[in-house]
């Protein structure tokens, strides 16, 4: 018995999924075939995920003697002929609902991701790996075409709906020829032209099956590793370290040269040498030096800690101006104005002052807060495009020479030393533990409160999860550190972190004093 061809379209609100469904119904109509589409938009038009369901009868009205097929309104799991989706995760979601099946379903999907809020809001990298998503597509489809629809959209300057239509047309899923589709798309407007361009791009892409296959492989292949980066390490330095360290080290070395100069870069090298020695001593027979390798990255990033000086320097670079110009698509003849949002507070300023002055300034600010005032800060909008703004940025950047005399510099160096000692000590006990401690360098990043939080967490791990004072048995320490580190990246409040700490027999973090404005309710005070 001839059954209707069933198609599920997945799109995000505002992507024109409804338009696509209408196009397909019109194409069928022009070709003289019975067709029906339906959807469940609700409020999904507000950027949520939604689906559109179509059924097209493979025979034209002319062959039906006036009889009309009964067309369905819901997709049948495993009996779907095509699943067409504008976003990779949504493709996987619908396959997960059991809709697509390897014995029947053609899957056309975008390789591009629109990240969900849950993925975006994590403090580290919460993005879903694409590999498994693509595996799902491959495993549960009769045929599949995965393409970078976002790129095709940009190329043709149209909405993804036209791209999807082109892909479907080329797939030969429906008994219609290219002309039928183009007839529906074509119109006088510029948008119609763009749609046709997009349609053609996708049409040709799907026709090129082999390249398609290669494309998928390319998507599934992991990003090129740092090893590819150029090695510009001074020979004498390079000589001291095993080859595997060179790529990262050269990047790091350059970073620190630019950050604070040759002496500082040299300090970095010395610190690594110390650790390398310790690790070699701990694992003589082993050729690999995983602890040092891991530390190479995090030490460099920590030593090149972010402060106003560095930010001012980055913001005032010519390369940055060109990048912004491209990002905002400013054309020749346009005037571009760029304002940078700064809000330096007392800690940022104190960071640049010698310890004594810094402490006095901080005390003054704490007193302010104690009086119920907000901590002092100066919101700035610096006009990068204007002479005055640029001059002030450069002035800030030029304070680089004074950085080593600042209080922040001193604090950071002290903490770095404590961390490195911790790693060395641990490595001697067990290289695995040393490696985990080295990885904790990931906790250190950013500015202000983010940075403070990171340092507190790292110190807490150093002092309570491992080290002489730790209550955690040595055998479990490596695993404990790993767990705690992951937990530390989960929520700002650090609830996950405290739980993880307690689980592994380490104390929770001490409660930090924080000024709270108690919400007094007069109604209650009176009564």
């Amino acid at each position: 018995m001839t059954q209707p061809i069933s198609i599920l379209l997945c799109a995000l609100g505002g992507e024109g999924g409804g338009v696509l469904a209408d196009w397909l119904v019109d194409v069928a109509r022009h070709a003289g075939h019975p067709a029906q589409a339906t959807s469940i938009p609700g409020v999904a038009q507000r950027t949520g995920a939604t689906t559109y369901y179509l059924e097209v009868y493979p025979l034209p009205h002319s062959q039906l003697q006036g009889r009309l097929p009964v067309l369905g309104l819901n997709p049948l799991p495993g009996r779907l002929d095509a699943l067409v989706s504008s976003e990779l995760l949504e493709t996987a979601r619908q396959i997960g609902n059991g809709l697509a099946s390897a014995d029947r379903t053609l899957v056309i999907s975008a390789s591009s991701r629109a990240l969900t809020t849950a993925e975006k809001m994590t403090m580290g990298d919460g993005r879903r790996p694409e590999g498994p998503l693509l595996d799902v597509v491959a495993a549960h489809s009769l045929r599949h075409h995965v393409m970078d629809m976002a790129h095709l959209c940009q190329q043709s300057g149209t909405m993804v709906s036209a791209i999807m239509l082109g892909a479907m047309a080329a797939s030969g899923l429906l008994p219609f020829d290219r002309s039928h589709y183009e007839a529906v798309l074509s119109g006088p407007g510029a948008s119609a032209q763009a749609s046709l361009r997009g349609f053609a791009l996708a049409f040709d892409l799907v026709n090129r099956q082999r390249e398609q296959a290669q494309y998928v492989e390319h998507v599934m292949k992991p990003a090129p590793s740092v090893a590819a980066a150029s090695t510009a390490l001074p020979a004498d330095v390079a000589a001291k370290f095993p080859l595997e360290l060179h790529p990262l080290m050269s990047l790091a070395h350059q970073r620190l040269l630019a950050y604070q100069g040759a002496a500082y870069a040299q300090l970095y090298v010395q610190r690594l040498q110390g650790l390398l020695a310790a690790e070699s001593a701990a694992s003589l027979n082993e050729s690999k030096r995983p602890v040092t390798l891991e530390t190479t990255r995090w030490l460099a990033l920590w030593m090149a800690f972010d402060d106003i000086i560095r930010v001012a320097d980055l913001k005032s670079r010519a390369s940055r101006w060109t990048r912004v110009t491209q990002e905002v698509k400013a054309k020749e003849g346009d005037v571009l104005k760029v304002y940078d949002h700064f809000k330096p507070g007392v800690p940022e300023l104190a960071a640049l002052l010698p310890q004594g002055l810094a402490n006095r300034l901080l005390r003054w600010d704490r007193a302010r807060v104690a009086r119920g005032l907000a901590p002092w800060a100066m919101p700035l909008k610096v006009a990068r495009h204007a002479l005055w703004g640029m001059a002030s940025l450069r002035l800030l950047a030029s304070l680089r020479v004074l950085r080593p005399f600042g209080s922040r510099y001193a604090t950071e160096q002290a903490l770095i030393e404590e961390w490195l000692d911790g790693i060395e000590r641990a490595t001697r006990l067990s290289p695995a533990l040393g490696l985990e401690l080295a990885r904790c360098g990931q906790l250190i990043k950013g500015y202000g409160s983010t940075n403070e939080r990171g340092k507190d967490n790292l110190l807490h791990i150093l002092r309570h999860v491992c080290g002489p004072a730790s209550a955690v048995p040595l055998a479990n320490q490596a695993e404990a550190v790993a767990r705690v580190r992951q937990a530390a990246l989960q929520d700002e409040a650090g609830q996950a972190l405290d739980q993880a700490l307690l689980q592994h027999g380490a104390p929770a973090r001490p409660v930090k004093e924080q000024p709270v404005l108690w919400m007094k309710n007069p109604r209650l005070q009176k009564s």
Partner: protein
Amino acid sequence: MEVSFHEEIKALRMGDGEVFHGEGILAITKGLLQSGVSYVGGYQGAPVSHLLDVMVQAKPYMDELGVHVEACSNEASAAAMLGASIHYPIRGAVTWKSIVGTNVAADALSNLSSPGVTGGVLIVVGEDYGEGASVIQERTHAYALKSGMCLLDPRPELGQMVNMVEHGFRLSEASNMPVMMELRIRACHVRGQFVAKDNLAPKLSKKNLLEEPASFNYMRLAHPPVTFAQEKRKVEHRLPAARQYITEQGLNEHFDGSDHRHLGLIVQGGLYNTLIRALQQFDLADAFGVTSLSVLVLNVTYPLVPNELVDFCKGKSAVLLLEEGQPEYIEQELALMLRRLDIQTPLHGKDMLPSGGEYTAEVMAQGLLKFLDRHQNDAVPIATRQWLHTNGERRQQVQALLGSPVPARPPSMCIGCPERPVFSALKLAQQDVGPVHIAGDIGCHALATFEPFSFGHSILGYGMSLASRAGVSPLMKRRVLSVMGDGGFWHNGLLTGVQSALFNGDDAVLLIFKNGYTSATGTQDIINTPTDIAKELAGDKRQSMVHTNQTIESTLKGLGVQWLRTVNTYEVSQMQATLTEAFTTEFQGLKVIVAEGECQLERQRRIKPWLASLLSKGERVERVKYGVDEDVCNGDHACIRLSGCPTLTLKDNPDPLKVDPVATVIDGCVGCGLCGENAHAATLCPSFYRAEVVQNPRWHERLWARWQGLATSWLQPA
């Protein structure tokens, strides 16, 4: 309004023999006009918004026909409109989202049903049930039963749907009962075709007015003592009359089976297509709906016609009733019928099908499998058993491949939405004053219940947030925040919330989102929508226009609200300060914060053509976009946890030394300014920049820019 129905309005004019192509709900609208309806009212809400929207936009044509269209302030006022049909031979129709809308309309519906109607009355309800639904999962069916209204559930085929609209009015007139038509989400949005008829200009209309009011007739009042007589009349006269009409006109469809005619399926009309698709999986139906089992399609699900059902069941070896939702009213009534007549045909329903949830083809197939296994197991092909079995397996395999379930993608506020900054401010305010109990409401702001905000302790109904805190705030140490949209405010928040709080002198905090439209339902206009004149007069079309309409403020003042603050939503710091003040002030009474910012959808609809025209004329245009410096961003994503804007997302870290992805602003950013505001209010990392691109700059601008460019380039390193 979000959708423009330019083409659809043309379709509404179609005459005899023309083929209408389009959406189900618009076919229904055309059906109303073909039935000579005199007045149409309702309240917007998915999935039936388009019915009213298209009529509002088609005003010139409606005036031509003399049809009165009323965009009612809520479902209760829409239902009350139907009172016109109690005395006068006028056909009227109203529409809303059910179950919620029907709940709001319930009082008027009872008082309408009791005296009954002379002119035909059709209530088109969108049964917001199953996948895609946004409300509580309950059945409208209950209202038909308790108030004595007919309930139509037409087979989702445009011709049949329109046909049932026309019958609906006649049925209403034949029985004096109001008639409800329930349309499921997928039926409202189904794209199909039907052969149109000429529209009927109503006999009584705005062009052909009633001469005299009807003479006084106490029997037409829902007022004792006649209410007792009216109840009797419902049972003794109206129901029989309705049943007679249904039988005579053959509104329910009986398809005799072929091989297995002794097995019967009874199905709600709305589920017919899905049932056929399910039967096809057993090779028990062909593509055209010819089935080997006998099928009775109930296009009218209340009242049921006992003879019809009994005749169908008599002599069948077994009957399966497919009735979606719970309780299973039809099944109970049918079982009672058969019992009373001592008919022994086995009746199956919820014993083989799930009591709750949408009846998809797969769900039905599983029920059919049980039914056939019991009564005709040779009718089940092996392939079908395998299919149903492998569905489950496949789902598990995918789960195994994916490891953890994929993250959900709920709807979120639009790019540049004026409500997002308020929740950023609320998040920051709570860092100072501690967590607050937040009474949520219906509307776009309800999207703040999703990440990254996860705000809202309760949602008690449209415009109910302030009322719903009346039991909480007196018993709680801290003050309670009620959030309400202007849509909800006018729908009923003004009376159930504000009036009550003032009358009781409650210590309450109300935040009203004044975005100027009922945005979640498709940005329909309301009483505080900025006027077209105001929009015309605005020099810069980009600015929010809602401040030009002060209806909310003056209403609140008129009622006696003493603590009233108006804050531009995009000023996060000020909003934060105002919230903190409201939570801590000495003032005891109702504190209202009006969060002012026009719906971004409406603004963009205005801005895009305006800018395009300026550019085409070569005039100066300044566009704003925010951005993140990839080398300054610290990969902590605090900015995202404070915003959730779709255009603020992540990309790989371009720095090979760093591993965490960095924030980035993608195309589509409308430059609302929230990123910058948050960067300041929350002291985020200094990676945000605001870029202003001036297209077609004036000559002196260009000159000045060039000079500054030279100067800065002399200062800047590579």
